[in-house]
């Protein structure tokens, strides 16, 4: 649960559209994060309006132009989860689910994991997250997501406009540090089932490669394990327990690298995936 305070009308309207379907509380009840997004209290706010992200009074990054308040909110929430939700082992990975089984998709920025997750979520898979895979420390297996909007960048925005024309998308915010950004609302089913965990079945390292047919190839598990450890935000916090959880997940999963250019081909291949157990 996040408590947000902001005077920015445009941000309020966008969040109302993109988060419709999520539970909302207006009461001053417990919240995991108390976030404020507002123009900073400085004179220059009148010359070049900016927005400042604060969580529990901390400013984790510099103020951004006011029209970037929405992506800033999403990046800020990612920062909050990655830094404070240490009751999970947190991977920098998209995660989707079908039949109770999860496909974990780690990848560097620009690898195409968000676009792939968004595309699959609009063709029968459930979106848990395009950015943060949350693994329970309790059983070391159950994966949770937040069903938050998918952050689309640059060419991916038009790709998803064509692929899921009826989906709700924010306005495009240009000239951010990541280029042009738009946020895509997850399908209603993903939001309705947000509390439902999934068990890991596949680890897929995606890579968007223009002009080539989609290709799913096995990837050695030792290399996967190293990459997973590198992609974990709080692996070092959990030490030996983190290693054991990741190793068990790698053991349990079929491991692949995946290159794609066309989302329809990607969906066909993912729909043929079979869990190992």
């Amino acid at each position, binding site marked *: 649960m996040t408590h947000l305070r902001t005077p920015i009308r445009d941000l309020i309207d966008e969040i109302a559209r993109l988060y419709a379907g999520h539970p909302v509380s207006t009461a001053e009840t417990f919240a995991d994060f108390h976030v404020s997004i507002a123009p900073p209290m400085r004179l220059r706010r009148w010359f070049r309006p900016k927005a400042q992200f604060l969580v529990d009074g901390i400013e984790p990054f510099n103020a951004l132009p006011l029209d970037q308040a929405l992506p800033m909110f999403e990046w800020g929430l990612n920062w909050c989860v990655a830094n404070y939700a240490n009751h999970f082992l947190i991977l920098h990975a998209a995660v989707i689910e079908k039949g109770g089984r999860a496909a974990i998709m780690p990848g560097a920025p620009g690898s195409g994991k968000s676009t792939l997750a968004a595309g699959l979520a609009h063709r029968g898979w459930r979106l848990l997250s395009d950015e943060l895979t949350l693994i329970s420390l309790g059983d070391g297996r159950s994966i949770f997501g937040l069903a938050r909007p998918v952050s689309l960048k640059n060419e991916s925005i038009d790709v998803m406009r064509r692929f899921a024309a009826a989906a709700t998308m924010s306005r495009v915010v240009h000239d951010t540090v990541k280029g042009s950004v738009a946020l895509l609302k997850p399908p209603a089913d993903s939001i309705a089932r947000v509390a439902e965990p999934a068990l890991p079945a596949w680890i897929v390292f995606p890579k968007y490669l223009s002009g080539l047919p989609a290709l799913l190839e096995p990837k*050695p*598990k*030792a*290399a996967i*394990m*190293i990459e997973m*450890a590198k992609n974990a935000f709080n*692996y*070092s916090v959990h*030490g*030996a327990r983190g*290693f*054991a959880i990741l*190793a068990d997940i*790698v*053991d349990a999963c079929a491991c692949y690298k995946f290159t794609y250019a066309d989302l329809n081909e990607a969906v066909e291949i993912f729909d043929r995936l079979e869990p190992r157990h």
Partner: protein
Amino acid sequence: MHTIWRVVREPPLLWRAWEGEIVLYNDASGDTHHLDPLAAEIFEILLERPAGVEELAELAAQALGVEITTDMRDTVAGIVTRFQGHGLIEPVQE
């Protein structure tokens, strides 16, 4: 002097083997290491019993079905040095 090496005991190392390779976690340093098939073989020999570089090279060559060469001895010596540098092995106290 001919040094005999063994895997460190405290804190115990965690490892997992896949397809001839090993990924190993050292809780003392917080580091995770990827051992290729030769390094994995040497690590597994040292798990079974302490050994010196020469013996490790011979046993690893046998296990991998390759001829032992000067290059291989040098490679094994390099792996042992690397293991020691990462705190994965220690000399046996006589």
